[in-house]
């Protein structure tokens, strides 16, 4: 009898270990699988717009937005993208290609004639002015307002401003047949383009005035959003495209002499943003690289003078590979 007890005592831990072992092996296999190199065999297509010359239409010029577009163009080409680049600038001689007619035409071409299909990756990048238009579609995310956000273009004749609202932009993006679409906006108020109907952001839409949300407020907002969720609302939901926006819905974005602050760190993220060391930079990783560096190198320096902002990103359960890390 006592021998049996000893047998039971000695074998039970082994049985437990024997049962745990397969689970540990499975978990390790999954971790390895996640870090494997994958053949990402699909086409990559981007439309890149930068507008710096607004003065003929009565708006303040921007200094870096045309450079932003050209630098992003170079980066995307090095990443294997086919890029349509349009800028409006007066750096050398006035060029006005980034106007509303071209924007619609470029999206139409991408939707119908660029041979894109659901497996391909599509990016729309814009650097320029952003604004809010009143009134717009109401949004259910706590803290957001009911104003429409818009990117600001200049018309073909360079004599008037053209506002492209978030809903209009969503309609253009919707025509693109790719399952993975990414919209990157380096513009003021661009966070309002994001429609996160299920995720509560710890960074509120007006961070420059309110600071971060408290933990319990954020958790409460998350439960509220789940309880009241009907469907994704207006603007650009994560199911349509993942958005990286330079600032909150009620915050402005900043630029330096070389690039917009967000674009500067976006460009860096392609080589330094592989935060989990798997060889790829996803939208979330690029966002977090930008977020962390704006916090450490811009907000910490200029915050005491009142110049603070944070980028925002789409929620949703899926994430896309944006760059292949060198």
């Amino acid at each position, binding site marked *: 009898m006592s021998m049996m007890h000893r047998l039971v005592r000695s074998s039970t831990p082994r049985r437990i270990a024997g049962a745990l072992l397969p689970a540990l092996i499975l978990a390790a296999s999954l971790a390895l699988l996640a870090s494997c190199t994958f053949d990402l065999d699909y086409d990559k297509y981007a439309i890149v717009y930068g507008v710096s010359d607004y003065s003929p239409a009565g708006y303040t010029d921007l200094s870096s937005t045309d450079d932003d577009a050209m630098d992003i163009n170079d980066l995307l080409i090095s990443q294997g993208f086919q890029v349509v680049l349009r800028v409006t600038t007066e750096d050398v001689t006035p060029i006005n290609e980034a106007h509303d007619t071209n924007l619609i035409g470029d999206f139409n071409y991408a939707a119908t004639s660029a041979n894109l299909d659901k497996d391909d990756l599509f990016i729309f990048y814009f650097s320029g002015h952003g604004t809010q238009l009143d009134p717009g579609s109401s949004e259910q995310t706590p803290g957001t307002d009911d104003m429409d956000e818009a990117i600001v273009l200049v018309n073909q004749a360079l004599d008037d401003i053209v506002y492209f609202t978030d809903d209009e932009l969503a309609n253009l993006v919707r025509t693109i047949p790719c399952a993975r679409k990414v919209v990157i906006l380096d513009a003021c108020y661009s966070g309002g383009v994001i429609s996160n109907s299920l995720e509560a952001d710890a960074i509120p839409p007006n961070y420059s005035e309110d600071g971060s949300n408290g933990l319990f407020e954020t958790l409460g907002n998350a439960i509220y959003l*789940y309880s009241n969720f009907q469907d994704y609302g207006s603007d650009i939901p994560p199911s349509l495209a993942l958005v990286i926006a330079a600032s909150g819905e009620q915050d402005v974005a900043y630029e330096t002499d070389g690039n917009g602050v967000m674009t500067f760190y976006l460009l860096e993220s392609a080589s330094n943003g592989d935060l989990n060391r798997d060889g790829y930079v996803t939208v979330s990783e690029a966002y977090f690289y930008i977020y962390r560096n704006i916090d450490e190198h811009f907000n910490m320096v200029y915050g005491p003078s009142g110049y603070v902002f944070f980028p925002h990103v789409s929620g949703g359960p899926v994430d896309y590979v944006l760059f292949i890390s060198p």
Partner: protein
Amino acid sequence: MKDKIAVADRLIICNINNNMARKTTLLVLLLLTFLLQSAAADSGERTRRPVLGIGAKGAVAVADDPLGGSPEFFTPKAQAVGALTALLDIPLFSPLYLGIGFQLHGTTISSLEGGWVYKSHWGGGFRLSAGYGFLLSEPSRPLQLTLGANAGGSFNVDLYTFTTLFFFYPGIFLEPYLELNHSRRKNSSIALVLPIDYYFRRDLEFYGSIGIGAVWRYTLQ
């Protein structure tokens, strides 16, 4: 009692069809029937004192079909899950007890195949359950095995990794367990658990996990 259970068994067997949901229900009912029969055969019963426990588990979660996405493109993918749990079991009317737990958990990204992943996220959850356990071995033996199961609901708030975005999702779970206790250490025991979780995500058509874990339990005097 046994006759009634036998009748119930026959009724259950008559209702077998190809419907998947019914098959699941059938399995659960058969499991409960097995537990009740075993309990009737063995008068042994789990201790009637509150129990504190801490545990760890590893699991594989499967996510599928994000809301509004292309279901042909966003196919099911697996994610690894790890969790730490603290729990308090309070005896209710015999033979049930109430479980209150708090869990910290993390989920890795899925495979990068196709250039996309299901996101990594981590957070905490409050878990409320009802459980039942009974002794498999005779109470006089020094080494005692208890078989049981907890079933309940979870309320979770997670943060998507590399973002500042929190989201809420409730779930239900079933945790069969096998508990090992030695008479020399009456107050403490080790249980092997096989947790099965299903989550009600509004942005995914399916999100569930199955895993294995161990719980150290301490019976309060």
